């Protein structure tokens, strides 16, 4: 079981893909909201969203452990439904989402702030509802920034180690992601195993970066053209 390479690979893939999808949607919605938000405490809210990026991953992991642990507030809440988050696969996703959210948020927000509000307003005067404005005007114009944010999210999720180890633990076949597997392989003196896992991570990273770079080049400029027709 400990010699399997498929297990950590499969778990990392599941975790990273799930995390990227979740962080993508939560990130763009929150970023869009904050980009146009000018209410009270904007800086404070901004600070809270960026906090997981600034804190050491072990601090975040420890905080989550206290929160979701058997004696923690969220831990007790979930135990009423018969589930425990600590040392389970969902824990890998939760930690990865929290650690990647600041990256998605910051990059996407910068992208949305760059979008010319006059173009959005022009769409509104033509009768487009808020969702339509968002998906057909704002998003295409902020697309490069959103793609960059997604790449960062993917990379960060793939490399997430400290917080994941604390909240999800090392359970081969269930929560052992590739970074955790590499760490324990080194500890056990199985350098060959560690090297093979490293090679797998490099292969995935390069393939994904190449795919996303290709996708980024297809920046839709059609939204602006449609408006001016």
């Amino acid at each position, binding site marked *: *079981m*400990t010699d399997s390479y498929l297990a950590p690979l499969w778990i990392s893939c599941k975790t990273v893909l799930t995390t990227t999808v979740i962080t993508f949607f939560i990130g763009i919605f929150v970023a869009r909201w904050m980009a146009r938000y000018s209410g009270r*405490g904007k*800086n*404070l809210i*901004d*600070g809270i969203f960026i906090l997981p990026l600034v804190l050491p991953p072990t601090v975040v992991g420890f905080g989550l*452990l206290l929160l979701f*642990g*058997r*004696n923690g507030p969220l831990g007790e809440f979930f135990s009423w439904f018969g589930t*425990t988050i*600590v*040392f389970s696969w969902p824990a890998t996703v939760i930690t990865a989402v929290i650690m990647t959210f600041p990256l998605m948020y910051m990059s996407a927000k910068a992208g949305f702030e760059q979008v010319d509000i006059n173009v959005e307003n022009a769409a509104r005067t033509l009768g487009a509802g808020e969702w339509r404005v968002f998906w057909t005007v704002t998003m295409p114009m902020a697309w490069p920034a959103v793609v960059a944010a997604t790449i960062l999210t993917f990379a960060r999720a793939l490399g997430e180690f400290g917080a994941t180890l604390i909240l999800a*633990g*090392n*359970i*081969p*076949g*269930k929560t052992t992601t590739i970074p955790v597997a590499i760490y*324990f392989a*080194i*500890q*056990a*003196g*199985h350098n060959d195993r560690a090297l093979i896992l490293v090679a797998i991570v490099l292969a995935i990273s390069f393939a994904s970066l190449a795919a996303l770079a290709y996708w980024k080049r297809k920046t839709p400029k059609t939204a602006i053209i449609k408006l001016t027709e």
Partner: protein
Amino acid sequence: MNFLRKNSFITLVLTGLLIALLAVAGCGVTSTETATSTTTSTTTTTTQVVAFDLNVSAAASLTDAITEINNLYMSKHTNITVLTNLASSGTLQKQIEQGAPADVFLSAGAKQMQALQDGGLLLDGTRKNLLTNKVVLVAPAGSTLTMADFSGLTGAAVQKIAIGDPESVPAGTYGKQALDQLGIYEQVQSKLILCSDVKQVLSYVEAGNVDAGIVYATDAAISKSVIIVAAAPAEVNNKIIYPVAVIKATKNVDAAKAYIAFLATDEVKAIFEKYGFVFVAG
């Protein structure tokens, strides 16, 4: 106040930093005090006594015992500062192999010590067996778990078992041996959470995030938040050995040898036994 409100994020960060600094200052005072007191005393002695550090790498399960013993050693040898490096024996073995400064190695398993011996990293003639321990199964305090021996782990009441990684943590190796001995390893494998050292296993059980954990009897004795549920089979417990040796690359051969000799004195024996370790003859 307008300035503060406008820059509420900066205020928050500065306040946070201030609190953190105060906390660190408050916690860091005791350790720095003892360090300076040992170094200042050397300058007043008239004999040619050189102050130096002795690096002792000790298995995590020895944390409390070795800390007390090292403080005792330092009080008797005011020119020596014993720097204790605590981690799982597997981690310590790796560090020594990669050249980390270590004068003495106290391992919880013979496998790690043997690996260093095979690699020619030990000073010949200094390796000897020092202690033995027992492996037990613990549960969080307040748990209603009962079983005659480890084979009760296959039951539905146990969903998560914390154990040191058998590949690098001796306590985990002994634990796996116990599970193999009882023929239940395959069954419980999916319930195992592998930890990087035995103290981590203990903390998981104390926090109640796992149903049971495999630790040493000495760890269970120190903790107030766990109960012992069962003991490992005698065949496993009888083979547990804590060897000690001087590392060949040491720069303080005499001090290292003297330290190991110190570990065999009656005074130190009493400390080990206080924590539940059993002394081994020879």
